[in-house]
């Protein structure tokens, strides 16, 4: 009985905090000219890359992470990372920060393949990367792992496994930008894919332990939530649809402890990840494939009513005209040649073109890599957006399954887009 009383005595665990921490307003440069830049982050190898995330470091550098290998779900997929020095345009060399073998050794759990990573800087100044791993089966059987670095990525502690599910610890995946709580806890938007498909918020202590997991929905309709904090109590969540053609919107009024049943927005969504950001004036920005089918277009959109209605203010990528058409490797190559200058620093042009052909065209003759009955299609997806301390926005996304593209724009450019599309 004494043991029971001791075990159940309240107050021994950390207190639940129902208050979000508010983001620090960036130092805005009012008279800066509009600026939008682009760069390719990763090298020509490995063949396939996907699911980038980015974080601004306190010393002004940017840190990006993604997964790459011969194909998504292959056992040679590793988690890669790269840095961009402050005020530089080109990214530094990529490096492997996690592999299946390393994850097995670190965690003591056999790991066969790796998936989505999300990077974050904790309030205590540690750089964390939370990434998906699978032992057996598809993405629905994923688990999460945590990599921590006390010195912004120079050294990494052994990865640890996060226990988030009662059923063989299966089916928790990560994608969205983390949010923070007033008590220092970290809210990681995650989602569940086994049997049901629904959004959740995983709360981690600053020590990296799981504090709790909060269901944002149930059933089979929402994935990959993005949480947009309004004030200490209120936040809106945008979610990828798992079955329909519109993105979902949920909201909380008690610091994320409880979430209202999600409702459909006007934002078209082809079952594809989206990114979003709350501006200082309350307007919401989203970067999304605003189409009902395929990921041929990636747009910047704005909402002035807390995420219910959206209008596009810029197209970062637009190949919508190719919808339903059969493209050949030659047409892919020709169209890309026109675009190469706009991609910015990155691998050599020929390496970009060769990789693109391999990744965008089905039925390519493996012997000589030339076109036969090849059927090609563009793909721009998995956006992730943040704002740095100077107010610049940094968007990363998967460019044609082949490269991680980084687009940076400042507030003046954004203001210009907002005014021109009124």
């Amino acid at each position, binding site marked *: 009985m004494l043991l029971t009383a001791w075990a159940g005595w309240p107050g021994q665990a950390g207190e639940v905090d129902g208050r979000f921490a508010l983001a620090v307003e960036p130092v805005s440069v009012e008279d800066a000219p509009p600026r939008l830049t682009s760069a390719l982050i990763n090298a020509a190898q490995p063949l396939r890359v996907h699911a980038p995330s980015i974080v601004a470091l306190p010393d002004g550098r940017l840190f990006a992470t993604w997964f790459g290998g011969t194909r998504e779900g292959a056992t040679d997929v590793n988690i890669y990372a790269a840095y961009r020095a402050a005020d530089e345009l080109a990214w530094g060399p990529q490096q492997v920060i996690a592999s299946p*073998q390393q994850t097995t050794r670190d965690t003591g*759990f*056999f790991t066969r393949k790796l998936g989505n990573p999300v990077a974050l800087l904790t309030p205590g100044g540690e750089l964390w990367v939370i990434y998906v791993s699978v032992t*057996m089966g598809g993405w629905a059987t994923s*688990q999460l792992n945590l990599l921590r670095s006390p010195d912004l990525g120079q050294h990494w502690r052994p990865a640890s496994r996060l226990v988030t599910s009662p059923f063989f610890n299966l089916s928790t995946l990560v994608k969205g930008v983390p949010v923070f709580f007033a008590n220092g806890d970290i809210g990681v938007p995650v989602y569940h894919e086994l049997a049901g498909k629904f959004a959740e918020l995983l709360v981690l202590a600053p020590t990296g332990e799981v504090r709790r*997991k909060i269901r944002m929905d149930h059933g089979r309709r929402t994935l990959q939530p993005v949480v947009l904090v309004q004030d200490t109590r209120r936040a809106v969540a945008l979610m990828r649809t798992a079955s329909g053609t519109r993105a979902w919107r949920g909201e909380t009024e008690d610091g994320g402890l409880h979430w209202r049943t999600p409702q459909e927005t006007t934002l078209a969504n082809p079952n594809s990840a989206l990114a979003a950001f709350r501006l200082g004036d309350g307007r919401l920005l989203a970067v999304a494939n605003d189409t009902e089918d395929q990921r041929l277009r990636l747009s910047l959109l704005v909402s002035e009513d807390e995420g219910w209605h959206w209008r596009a203010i810029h197209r970062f990528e637009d190949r919508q005209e190719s919808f339903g058409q059969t493209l050949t490797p030659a047409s892919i190559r020709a169209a890309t040649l026109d675009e190469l200058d706009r991609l910015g620093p990155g691998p050599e042009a020929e390496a970009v073109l060769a990789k693109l052909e391999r990744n965008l065209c089905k039925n390519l003759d493996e012997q000589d890599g030339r076109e036969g009955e090849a059927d090609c299609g563009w793909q721009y997806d998995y956006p992730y957006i943040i704002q740095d301390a100077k107010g610049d926005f940094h968007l990363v996304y998967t460019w044609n399954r082949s490269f991680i593209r980084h687009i940076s724009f400042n507030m003046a450019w954004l203001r210009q887009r907002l005014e021109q599309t009124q």
Partner: protein
Amino acid sequence: MTGFAIDLCGWGLLLCLALAGLQRSRRWPGACGKCRWPGNMLLVLVLLAAPFPPARPIEMMRGLFAGLSVTTVVMLVALLLACNGSRRAVFAKSEEGYLPPLITVVAMLFHPPALGLGPVDPYAWGYDDAHVLALTVGALALAAWLASWRMSALALVLALTAWRLRLLASPNLWDYLFDPLLVLGALGVTCVRAVRHMRAKSRAGHSGAAA
């Protein structure tokens, strides 16, 4: 680290029991009446921790089945004790009869909503505001003790203690109380018993008809 040790111990016990079952079966050469558990346990632990690429067997088992609960490990110890001594000294008769179906029913009520069926997530009750659940488990342990279900009471109390000391990687009380392997074991025992019961009933029916 303690989670790894507990899992190693649990899988060692499980495989040791399986080995003992084989040794006791008539098909096994040199069959014996009792489990040779110290020797078996040593052998199994060495095998589990041996480096067989791409991973050690214990890493493989943990990867496939995740961590074991404290209750599962206690039950495996109890089964090993029962295997070597009097079953009745370890499990009360009613405990042996009712515990497997009880675990199965609790799991059937728990897992579907915990995996997303409906808005209520019972797994969330096991996180840091789990005092109500902890006190309920304590009350159940007391009730089990009073009903002479000593092994169940011990398992629950040890699970509570391990949870408070955070001995596993999970902070969730449910992960200390049960896991899918315990449920599968309980489900298996329940099904085997049900089949045996039906067969016995059918045999009794036949012999009655013949008479």
